[in-house]
């Protein structure tokens, strides 16, 4: 660790201006350094700002404050030694595999024979031999992402940035590609010196990275840093591998500092009308309660275990678990989810009883639902325009978040029959239309 880092972020902050003049903070207090020979993982849920950080490093956006420097020089715009692999591959459909790969070199005005030589070498390395004249649409997802890799490697970057490169692929293909990548990396056959990998897949992070930075949301920040010193190739079934995965689950479900013993309120700071609610369907809520209530869990489940049982990624599982917690149907802590009394009752109840339980919790614990209901009760017409509530919510959150929050409330309230909503006229009412 005596050499200087390839890349350094110090106190990076990123905020986007909102139309009303205030700003939306997405990243704060980011400190990160990447040294030669390392793969650093940025792990977090969507909205934790990890992709934003990657774009700052790629020079595709500028930090609002703080500094990103590459080889000691501040980054302003895309740097020649940093290449990126994209989640959706971002290939140009009108160029062949060869032309896609050669594009980065064309941009550098390299002599044609050199371009040809290097492109073919990169294509060769990544296992695309024979596909040179194919168009992206003729390739499977896995092959397309290989083109993405070849295109990034051909410019001989020092740093490779990967933005969830395997998440658009099926499980099997993703695994093959990861293994191939790790083989090339550990054999030192790629021209790169360091890698930054953005992911929301905990196992993928543990499998590939030397260091994992766990991100928290609202605003995006680093919760903790975890070193992975297991030797490559790593085995998912290895007890120490499982232990690490479990530990990261615990990190990611931990309550913010200062809330020890403070009850659930701190999980949702200031849970008033103004909190953003997640897009989670009642089917998912019911499904998770049923799964946790059933054997072998019988009311308490280890999150990594139930995630793999249900084949859900943390991005899908966490919002559901947290919504259950918000509704006081369950308690999430230390990498476990434990059903509360009403949660168990719900899991075992029939449809009508379920709706009654759900309605009680919804009105009691989600202030926005109570608020809408109160407004409808008070009005003689028992109806209210959607825009009325959107306006109210926008005092607290962005337009998009307000829409999402209201949609979530509508969805839950329809299930619990707390109130009705007519999308055509954007009206809330107490009665369902006939």
């Amino acid at each position, binding site marked *: 660790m005596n050499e200087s880092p390839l890349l350094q972020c110090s106190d990076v902050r990123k905020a986007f201006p909102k139309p009303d003049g205030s700003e939306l903070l997405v990243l704060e207090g980011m400190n990160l350094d990447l040294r030669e020979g390392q793969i650093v993982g940025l792990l977090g849920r969507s909205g934790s700002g990890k992709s934003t950080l990657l774009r700052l490093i790629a020079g*595709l956006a500028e930090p609002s404050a703080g500094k990103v420097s590459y080889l000691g020089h501040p980054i302003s*715009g895309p740097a020649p030694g940093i290449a990126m692999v994209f989640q959706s591959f971002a290939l*140009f*459909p*009108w160029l062949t595999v060869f032309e896609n790969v050669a*594009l980065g070199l064309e941009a550098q005005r390299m002599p044609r024979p050199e371009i040809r030589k290097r492109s073919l070498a990169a294509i060769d390395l990544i296992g695309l031999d024979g596909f040179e004249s194919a*168009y992206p649409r003729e390739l499977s997802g896995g092959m397309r992402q290989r083109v993405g890799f070849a295109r990034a490697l051909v410019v001989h970057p020092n740093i490779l940035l990967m933005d969830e490169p395997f998440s658009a692929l099926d499980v099997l293909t993703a695994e093959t590609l990861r293994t191939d990548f790790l083989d090339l990396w550990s054999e030192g056959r790629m021209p790169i010196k360091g890698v930054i990998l953005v992911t929301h897949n905990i196992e993928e992070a543990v499998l590939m990275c030397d260091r994992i930075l766990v991100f928290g949301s609202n605003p995006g920040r680093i919760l903790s840093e975890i070193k992975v010193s297991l030797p490559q190739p790593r085995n998912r079934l290895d007890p120490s591998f499982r232990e690490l995965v479990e530990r990261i689950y615990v990190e990611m479900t931990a309550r913010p500092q200062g809330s020890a013993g403070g009850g659930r309120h701190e999980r949702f700071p200031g849970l008033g009308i103004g909190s953003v609610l997640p897009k989670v369907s009642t089917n998912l809520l019911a499904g998770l309660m049923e799964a946790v209530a059933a054997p072998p869990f019988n009311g308490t489940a280890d999150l990594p275990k139930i995630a793999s049982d249900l084949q859900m990624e943390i991005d899908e599982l966490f919002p559901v678990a947290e919504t259950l917690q918000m509704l006081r149907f369950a308690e999430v802590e230390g990498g476990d989810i434990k059903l509360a009394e009403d949660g168990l009752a719900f899991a075992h109840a029939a449809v009508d009883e379920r709706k009654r339980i759900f309605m009680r919790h919804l009105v009691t614990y989600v202030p926005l639902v109570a608020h809408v209901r109160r407004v409808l009760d008070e009005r003689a017409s028992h109806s209210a325009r959607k825009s009325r509530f959107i306006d109210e919510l926008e005092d607290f959150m962005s337009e998009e978040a307000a829409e999402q929050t209201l949609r979530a409330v509508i969805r839950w309230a329809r299930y619990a029959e707390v109130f009705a909503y007519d999308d055509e006229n954007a009206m809330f009412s107490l009665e369902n239309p006939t």
Partner: protein
Amino acid sequence: MKRFEPYVFLREFATRWDVLAFVVVIGLIVFLGESSRGLLAPLSQLSSTPLSLDPARLPQYAARTTFRMLAGLVLSLIFTLTYATWAAKSERAGKLLVPILDILQSVPILGFISITVVFFLSLAPGRVLGAEFASIFAIFTSQAWNMAFSFYQSLRTIPTELTEAAESFRLSPWMRFWQLEVPFGMPALIWNMMMSMSGGWFFVVASESITVGQTSVALPGVGSYIALAIAQKNLTAIGWAIFTMLIVILLYDQLLFRPLVAWVDRFRVEQEPGVRVPDSWALDMMRRSRLIQAATLAFHAAVLRTSRAVKRRNAATPVAETRPKRSLDLFWVSLMIAVVVLALWHIVAVLIANTSLREALQVSGLAFLTMLRVFLLIALASLIWVPIGVWVGMRPRAAQIVQPAAQFMAAFPANLLFPIAVFGIVRWRLDPDIYLSPLMILGTQWYILFNVIAGASAIPAEMRYVAANFQVAGWLWWRKVALPAVLPFYVTGAITASGGSWNAAIVAELASWGDTQVRARGLGAYIAEATTAGDFHRIVLGIGTMSLFVVVINRLFWRPLYYYAERKYRLT
């Protein structure tokens, strides 16, 4: 890497495709030379060598007409690539350029001719070239706006990751334009070029034989041929002209658009499943002929070479969020407002000085009449074509035959058929207020038909099975299944048809046969008469009113309807 080596010519002297390509290329060169001859000739030559109704002259006239179309298309393409790019790249310019484009789109095309012909004639005084300019400009105005719009929209919807990839591999702006932006916009652009072409054919006929007040020019071409045939009441000659036009459009379709559509398929970012890749013998010819292969490779190399030659911007700054200063914004907005107010004041002043309020009211009344006609005709055409379109669309084999036919009909300039109708009206003394009206929709009704066909064939098979399974039939089936499913498509078609009909009104409401004039009351006839009389102020008043009506109808009726249909009925 491509396994073939493009420059090995001698292995085999020539393929069949080479021979075919050679013939076509030489043919094109001869055609270009033929049709551009006489451009620099003095204007007086037009009167010394009068048009002749001899069918043997038609190929030559057709060549001249086609050449004008091509020139208009090239101009439109240049306009599109510059104007739309500017509007999309500069937020500030876009604020002004996009609304301008929107207004230009609703100005009746013939309006442009009447106003600009004098200017163009003065550009090349006493030469045919000036009149050609005027004619080509008219064609340009019928093609350019929607092409520019489509390209602007494409530029605004390039997927973020593609721009980021281009950015992170540090493509120069020039390279980015040719390697990312143009290819991405290409499919929509080609489609709009085809639509533009249909509009262009309609007006090429009207724009060749120009009469504005004292100025009267008849350029050699199919349009002038028709005008002459009408003046001489020669029905056979009109038949010949229609036949020629059919062939010309067929050739355009086969040699230009089909290959383009087939070729552009590779530029689609997302491939909808089940969409059959269109095929084209002309494209096959081009691909298989090594002569043409070598030419395209050379073009490709040229693009790359210019990319290298054009200097890359020095400091790579992230383009994502360079925010213009507020004060500058304010300045820009106030400048725009000042310009608008000035222009408005000028227009109003000129109109007030030269036209009476009574006339303005009268023009509004005429506009209402025309509007009534357009809406009634759209309704009538819908009643006929929607059921037929749905029926055809549900039967893939029928759709395969009818769909191209409908598109072809839409491209065919309906005004070629007007003389026949007018002949009938004169002959049987029919009421022009009623019987001239259908002419307005003669050429545009096809948009409704082929959009509905497209909509009906896009109904998922499962949805049809469900309907069959629950024995949903008869009126219930139309109400709950077919009509909602085709609604978004229908609205698209109806919008195009409505716009086209307004444009056609100018030609359709005032028609002649020999010395007899038949006239329907409406804004179109008003503009046409003002044009013939060369009454500039009345032309402006008429065209201004028509543009206003079209814009308002679009904003208040079609656009909300479109969004409603898209939101509620689009099957995704």
